[in-house]
């Protein structure tokens, strides 16, 4: 057997994660990053060490090691060098105090590989230990020949796993999932499409989407902050670590340095026109899940009728629930529910669209009765219809705008998964629009976009004078735009109980979960897609 080449090098960390869970290693190899992972990385970079060592030892930190035989590289937290040159490898672990300071199989494999590398590098390894930072406890680990064998087997197994194009299955009902840094991207319990027992899942991140909506303003960065200035006045100064993404509305300038900084952090910038249309976006070069993206393209070309059907089935079901809540006659509600059911059986994507159009016509027919007359245009209640561009009345202008923000959110969610926004299953990829982002919007249009507009109008946040009318083309004024953005943000940060998994998430997080469900369906770990239906 020839030694692995440069490209086949594995990190010791990856192999250790493989012992913990093969899927975890696969996700990491696919490029999935999470905030909690930084915790493990952070401890390693921790220079100041409180680990007690023999006073006659010299301590080396962050020592890079490699084994060309096995094709692994790694970094030892600390290596103590005794007077006679013998080494003791001490690995730091941030095991929380509430758990026991116990040496786990992944830790043993990690130490075994580190020792193996050092021996290959010509050094004698006298002993190994784990320093539990939070407990303040040093536990010596006696490695045997068996540990070395197991480590070698694990390296080969890891190599095999990450070479696969489909993800290993998640663990089932395993307590280890609750302390895995990748639970938010793995979604282990969601496979069964059933309520998930309470796990630690991120309900919402501690960072926010920043909307830049003052025309003529300029956003830049300095000293780790996002700055916004307008005509010499400082409008805002925010810490970059609190930024989840940036949406630029209309004529706002972003400095190149800011864009670079945002991309470097993996944050997406989306530019929208002042009327709400998504113009374009910038995202990091690093995009996870490359192998699934290939599958996405294959399946988009081939077609996935099941996905197309479910997007519209959920959408129309939500339209039905919405109008029912707002007092629609039983006839309309029933018809919409019939259409929703029909969508589950539609034989072609074209038919799915036909059903969607039929439902939209009935649904929007009901809309004018929910808002004050002025919003649908002078005496137009009887003949108001959902015209897209240009908007001829305030209601259409408001809907157009909020749909744009929803697309920005689904776009961000799709990009975070590493999926290609342009390869969709309902909307045609051939129409040069971000088809998958638009697909993902469908089930959310009613609960997020349309509901926001209705609320904003009915509680006075959005008034008639927030719109301008120039020769029949109606547009939002600056103040109205900001009010609508705020209303949308408040809505999208509201918490719901996910109807399938039963855990609490914000609507925005729910969009991300649904994007990951699509990812799961495409990579084969999810049997089917279930859209979100409001109650």
């Amino acid at each position, binding site marked *: 057997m020839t030694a692995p080449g440069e490209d086949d090098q594995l990190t010791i960390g990856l192999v250790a994660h493989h012992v913990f869970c093969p899927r975890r290693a696969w996700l990491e190899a696919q490029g999935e990053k999470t905030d909690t992972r930084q915790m493990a990385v952070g401890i390693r970079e*921790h220079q100041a060490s409180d680990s007690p060592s023999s006073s006659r030892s010299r301590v080396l930190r962050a020592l890079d090691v490699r084994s060309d035989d096995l094709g692994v590289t790694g970094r030892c937290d600390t290596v103590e060098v005794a007077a006679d040159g013998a080494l003791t490898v001490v690995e730091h672990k941030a095991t929380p105090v509430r758990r026991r300071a116990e040496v786990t199989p992944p830790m043993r494999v990690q130490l075994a590989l580190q020792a193996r590398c050092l021996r290959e590098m010509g050094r004698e390894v006298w002993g190994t230990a784990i320093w539990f930072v939070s407990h303040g406890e040093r536990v010596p680990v006696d490695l045997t020949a068996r540990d070395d064998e197991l480590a070698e087997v694990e390296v080969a197994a890891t190599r095999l796993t990450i070479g696969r194009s489909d993800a290993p299955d998640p663990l089932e009902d395993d307590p280890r999932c609750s302390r895995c840094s990748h639970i938010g991207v793995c979604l282990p319990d969601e496979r069964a499409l059933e309520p998930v027992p309470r796990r630690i899942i991120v309900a919402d991140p501690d960072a926010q989407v920043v909307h830049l*909506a003052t025309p003529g303003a300029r956003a830049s960065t300095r000293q780790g*902050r996002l700055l*916004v200035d307008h005509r010499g006045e400082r409008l805002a100064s925010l810490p970059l670590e609190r930024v989840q993404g940036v949406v630029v509305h209309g004529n706002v300038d972003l400095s190149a340095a800011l864009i670079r900084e945002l991309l470097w952090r993996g944050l997406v910038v989306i530019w929208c026109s002042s009327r709400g249309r998504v113009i374009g976006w910038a995202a990091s070069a690093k995009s996870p899940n490359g192998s699934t993206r290939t599958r996405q393209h294959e399946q988009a070309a081939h077609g996935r009728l099941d996905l197309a059907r479910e997007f519209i089935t959920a959408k129309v079901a939500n339209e039905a629930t919405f109008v029912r809540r707002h007092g629609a006659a039983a006839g309309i509600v029933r018809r919409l529910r019939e259409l929703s059911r029909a969508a589950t059986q539609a034989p072609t994507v074209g038919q799915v669209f036909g059903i969607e159009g039929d439902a939209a016509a009935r649904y929007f027919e009901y809309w004018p009765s929910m808002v004050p007359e002025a919003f649908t245009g002078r005496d137009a209640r009887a003949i108001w219809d959902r015209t897209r561009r240009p908007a001829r009345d305030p209601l259409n202008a408001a809907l157009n705008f909020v749909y744009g923000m929803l697309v920005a959110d689904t776009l961000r969610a799709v990009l975070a998964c590493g999926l290609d926004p342009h390869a969709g299953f309902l909307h045609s990829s051939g129409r040069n629009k971000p088809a998958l982002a638009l697909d993902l919007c469908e089930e959310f249009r009613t609960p997020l976009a349309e509901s926001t507009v209705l609320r904003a109008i009915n509680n006075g946040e959005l008034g008639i004078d927030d719109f301008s009318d120039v020769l029949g083309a109606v547009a939002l004024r600056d103040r109205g735009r900001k009010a609508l953005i*705020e209303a949308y943000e408040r809505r999208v940060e509201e918490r719901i109980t996910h109807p399938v998994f039963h855990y609490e998430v914000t609507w925005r997080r729910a969009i991300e979960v649904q994007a990951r469900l699509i990812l799961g369906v495409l990579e084969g770990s999810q049997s089917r897609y279930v859209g979100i239906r409001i109650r």
Partner: protein
Amino acid sequence: MSEEARRYLVAYDSPSDQRRERLAHTLERFGDRVQYSVFVVDVRPAKLVRLRTELEVLIDRSQDSVLVADLGVFGAVGRRFEFLGRRADPMTRGPVVI
């Protein structure tokens, strides 16, 4: 580890101008300055570990001091701040529309 965002107060002191400046730079990226060497950082615990690690690398353990006070889950504690004199409110947790 992926719990709710909490409010942390981080205060530092150092005889070295250079280290004080570096500490401030790092903290400016995570939170907001409320007083000369006092910052408020509203983040989840996982992010705080990252901040702490960065701060630890910067300080001289024998000369400098950094205080990290956990004030609790943000929702519960947000309104407990009172400023006498000049206000310096930290970044909102609500919509950010500029």
